[in-house]
């Protein structure tokens, strides 16, 4: 199955892209997505446990992901 990983701000700069379509096994969790992203060039600049959202809601690392989900890695926010 595939999930779309969205990257923003400093994380997007670190990996050099704003979006990655990831092939991942059925039954994968948020943690699996983060682990797979962490192997990409530039990912060493991301924290080991970044905040993650699935389909626009903050999600714990054990949350299951499904085909077509949008998974976002969320840098420290700074609105206002």
């Amino acid at each position, binding site marked *: 199955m595939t999930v779309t990983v969205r990257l923003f701000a400093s994380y997007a700069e670190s990996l050099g892209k704003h979006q990655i379509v990831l092939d991942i096994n059925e039954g994968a969790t948020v943690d699996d997505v983060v682990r797979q992203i962490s192997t990409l060039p530039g990912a060493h600049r991301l924290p080991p446990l970044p905040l993650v959202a699935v389909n626009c809601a903050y999600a714990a690392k054990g949350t299951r992901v499904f085909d077509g989900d949008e998974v976002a890695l969320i*840098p420290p*926010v*700074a609105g*206002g």
Partner: protein
Amino acid sequence: MIRASIVRSRIDIEALTREAASPSCGATAVFLGTVRAENEGRSVDGIEYTAYDAMAEREMTLILDEARSRYSIESAIVEHRIGELPVGDASIAVVVSHPHRGAAIDALRYIIDETKARATIWKLEQYTDGTREWVGSGTGQPE
């Protein structure tokens, strides 16, 4: 009535105040956040704001709902502008109306504090010496 929006054009605070006003409300509290010329001793030229738009609007709507439950506000609007903003431009506006001023001001404080801590918005500060830096400390999660 509540409304949370990410916008790309200049914030019209008078229009927002009219939108939130109600004959039953004796208090309209307004907060306007603007780009400051200095941050932690560095001279700021401007700020580039970016957002995960859909999630930011969702999270800000949740915050307005929480404020409505806590303070029984009648109307609340939050608009956050993104893009490149020069010093002095408004980046965020919050408008709250309530029959009484105490609850309006308390709700206003709650909404701006939670928005800064949770909304998926980022700022890239541009300094007058030509350097730039991502700034941020919000945890992104409800307290």
